[in-house]
């Protein structure tokens, strides 16, 4: 960091400063750990020597206390030494798709959208809708939105998977409970430099009216659809804003999906040896059930049930994030042993 070249490059300096901050924490704790170990050794020596009874008593008491300290510091250090997910600090792109259950699934998708929107509000994060496709009953077939702010991805990454709802649909006259589902995918936002997209790899289209278009047509829609030819990924953005904005939004989503694809492939290679991992894993796994009659939400990965359905759907699901992060840490620790 004292290097002249670095001091002239603010981005690099910041990156190194952050790294140093992180490392400093570990270094400080390591010093404390070594000091406690040394003291523990000394205490053990005094006890072993046994010549002064009073001293031995004191040493015994200290030893117990130090053992506790050492154990705690060990745990903390182990956690700090787990490599952080480098994507945690990024912004996130969230995709919610209605699954089985027709209109009701669409309404549930929109409930989840509201849940994440409220979560973002509580956490001081910003949301921006990028694309959506509604169904006639008023729910979403699909909605894609960006969440930006500190650790947006880190806080939302555990939401990837299938969310299941059990309730009496609004449209249901007989009062029977139905089960439907929506799938959520959380992707880290990719920077332009990280994902190279060659212009010739893109097919960009808009809805094509019959007739010559141009001055002859007056519509509010300037939807843009982008196909990434090499991978076949299609992104469309529709709203009333300019074609330019829609194109940029679609590109943002495309970049995130391409980045995610690469990351997933790399992760699959790394995880070939590890099983049962909690994290942004298989997207088709059922991760949570929202049971309305019981007012209960259960996360199946950690077996945690909370009887706070209303609050959770209002964006207050921090508890799940906490416990999932903990479980993920424990997994990582176990795997490294």
């Amino acid at each position, binding site marked *: 960091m004292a290097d002249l070249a670095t001091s002239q490059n603010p981005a690099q300096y910041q990156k190194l400063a952050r790294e140093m901050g992180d490392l400093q924490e570990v270094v400080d704790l390591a010093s404390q750990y070594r000091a406690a170990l040394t003291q523990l050794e000394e205490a053990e020596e005094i006890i072993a020597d046994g010549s002064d009874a009073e001293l031995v008593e004191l040493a015994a008491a200290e030893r117990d206390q130090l053992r506790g300290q050492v154990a705690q510091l060990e745990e903390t250090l182990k956690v700090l030494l787990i490599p952080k997910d480098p994507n945690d600090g990024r912004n996130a792109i969230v995709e919610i798709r209605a699954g089985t259950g027709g209109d009701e699934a669409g309404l549930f998708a*929109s409930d989840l959208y*509201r849940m994440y929107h409220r979560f973002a509000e509580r956490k001081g994060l910003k949301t921006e809708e990028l694309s959506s496709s*509604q169904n006639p009953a*008023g729910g979403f077939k699909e909605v894609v939105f960006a969440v930006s702010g500190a650790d947006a991805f880190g806080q939302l990454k555990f939401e990837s998977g299938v969310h299941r709802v059990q309730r009496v649909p609004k449209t249901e006259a007989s009062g029977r409970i139905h089960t439907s589902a929506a799938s959520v995918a959380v992707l880290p936002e990719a920077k332009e430099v990280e994902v190279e997209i060659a212009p010739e790899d893109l097919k*960009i*289209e*808009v*809805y*094509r*009216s019959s007739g*010559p*278009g*141009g*001055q*002859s*047509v*007056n*519509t*509010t*829609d*300037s939807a*843009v659809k982008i196909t990434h030819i090499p991978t076949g990924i299609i992104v469309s953005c*529709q*709203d*009333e*804003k*300019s*074609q*330019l*904005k829609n194109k940029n939004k679609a590109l943002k989503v495309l970049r995130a999906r391409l980045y995610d694809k690469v990351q997933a492939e790399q992760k699959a290679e790394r995880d070939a040896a590890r099983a049962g991992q909690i994290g942004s894993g298989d997207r088709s796994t059922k991760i949570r059930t929202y049971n309305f009659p019981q007012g209960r939400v259960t996360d199946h990965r950690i077996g945690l049930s909370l009887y706070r359905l209303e609050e959770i759907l209002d964006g207050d699901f921090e508890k799940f994030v906490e416990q999932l992060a903990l479980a993920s840490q424990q997994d990582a620790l176990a795997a490294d042993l």
Partner: protein
Amino acid sequence: MTIVRETIRETHQTLEAAGIPDARLEAEVMVMTVMPDDLAGIIGQRLERIPLAYILGYREFYGINVVVTPDVLIPRPETEGIVEHTLFMALMGMETRELSIADVGTGSGAIAVNLAIHLPAARIYAVDISEPALDVAAWNIRAHSVADRIRLGHGDLLEPVPESVDLIVANLPYIPTDRIPTLQPEVQCEPGAALDGGPDGLDLVRRLLAQAPGKLNSPGIILLELDPEQFPAAEAVALQHFPDAEITAEQDLSHRDRIMVISRP
């Protein structure tokens, strides 16, 4: 949020029943933009087929909000392409040079304002035959703080442009007269003078190309927005006045020929 969802659904149904295009999208925009008390009035106007942009008073174009009134044409998404291509032409090997540009038939000023924003060194003339349109353009120019770089001019095609320019950009009326009554009711609400290009739609384009040699520098570029089937005829006229020019067609995002680029060496 359920109330909003309900309101959007009802509005959507009302608009759709009346045959309004993009009913769902417009319903969303209306409900999210307008105060609940005003919504019924807005819907009422829309049911008379007044374009949404006139009702709300603006249309987003190339990333900025452009104020529109019934005195100007509502900018089309295809026209964003002409801004893009003009910027591309201007920036290619011409970065440091002070460019002069004429936006002929500027209407709301949508093109001129965007060019000014992205080309800080350019000198732009935005001209139109309609004074009410120039008032709207003036508003948009002030709103985006580019008044120091755009001069407005009133008159016929290139006549009000005081000097020879490097780039001429024109989205002139290019619809054949007979087609206009067959178009959407929304289009009928827009100023006829901003749409009507005569029997084959090319009357104004022809006159512009006749005036252009005296007002275009060498090298110089003309960018024209047209309908696909007009390209052969327009190219012939262009070659008449610029026999040495290179003429190319750029497509819009519907893969239709939309912009004719005439490069004078």
